[in-house]
């Protein structure tokens, strides 16, 4: 066989390497498209019978945590919230949950949230680009999303959020 016959094979192998590398890179966590954007406008009921809106979040750093009584993974990060609840402004959004079940869950495991909003119909969570729980949004004083965590939040991220002025 002449060398020219190996050119197609060489090009094919190059493509295999490129695609394999791209596939490997896709396992890395990709940045959320919500980072850098404003919290969307919303107005939802709270578990105490009040109203929570996006305007209530302005003027201070807040953490919005999507959780549910049916969410077993939420229990993994719950101790972190309970340990730090006095030092952070944590807003809970109970997603697709029965308020009675949410209350029972908070009574059982402790309530680290300053306010608990209710989103039974997923109106808020779809405007935030949420796909599951737990998910957490770190929001600055101007209402801009600084970080969006899918899954359990790390203690390091929490400390960095409040240490970076």
């Amino acid at each position, binding site marked *: 066989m*002449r060398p*020219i*016959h190996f*050119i*197609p094979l060489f*090009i*094919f192998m190059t*493509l295999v390497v*490129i*695609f394999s590398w791209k596939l490997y890179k896709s396992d890395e966590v*990709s940045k*959320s*498209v*919500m980072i850098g*954007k404003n919290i969307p406008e919303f107005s939802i009921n709270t578990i105490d019978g009040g109203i929570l809106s996006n305007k209530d979040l302005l003027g201070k750093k807040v953490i919005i945590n999507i959780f549910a009584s049916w969410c077993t993974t939420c229990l993994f990060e719950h101790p972190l919230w309970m340990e730090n609840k006095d030092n952070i402004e944590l807003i809970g959004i109970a997603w*697709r949950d029965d308020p009675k079940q949410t209350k029972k869950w908070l009574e059982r495991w402790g309530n680290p949230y300053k306010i608990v909003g209710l989103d039974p*119909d*997923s*109106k808020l*969570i*779809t*405007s*935030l*680009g949420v*796909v*599951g729980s737990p998910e957490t949004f770190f929001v600055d004083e101007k209402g801009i999303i600084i970080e969006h965590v899918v899954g359990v939040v790390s203690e390091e991220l929490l400390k960095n959020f409040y240490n970076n002025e």
Partner: protein
Amino acid sequence: MRFLSILFLFCLFVSKSYAVENYLEYPEQEFRAKELFKEIRCVVCDGESISDSNADLAKDLRILIRNRIRAGDGDQAIIEDLVARYGQQILMQPPVNSSTLFLWSAPIILLAIAILFIIITFRKK
């Protein structure tokens, strides 16, 4: 025992995931909605659109799209809004742009390579 099994299966069938959604009042709007559902990926499923999926999030997105159509929003605006919240991953078909050009052209490149190889081989013979 058989009765209990049938009753159990019946309860599963009428559970939350099979709840009836409120279709749009006008058939042309509902047609638009159904066409859009096929373009939007169920991000918690494996390769399904929200049209095919019974996942709660898929249902929520179908309701959201219907509400937007009912409010008078155009298809492109609805898609752009979803992409703004979820990223390109929400689309069943990635768009053709500079970052996806290689993806779209790769099959053509591979086909060209195969044809080239065949031509070279048969020329020699």
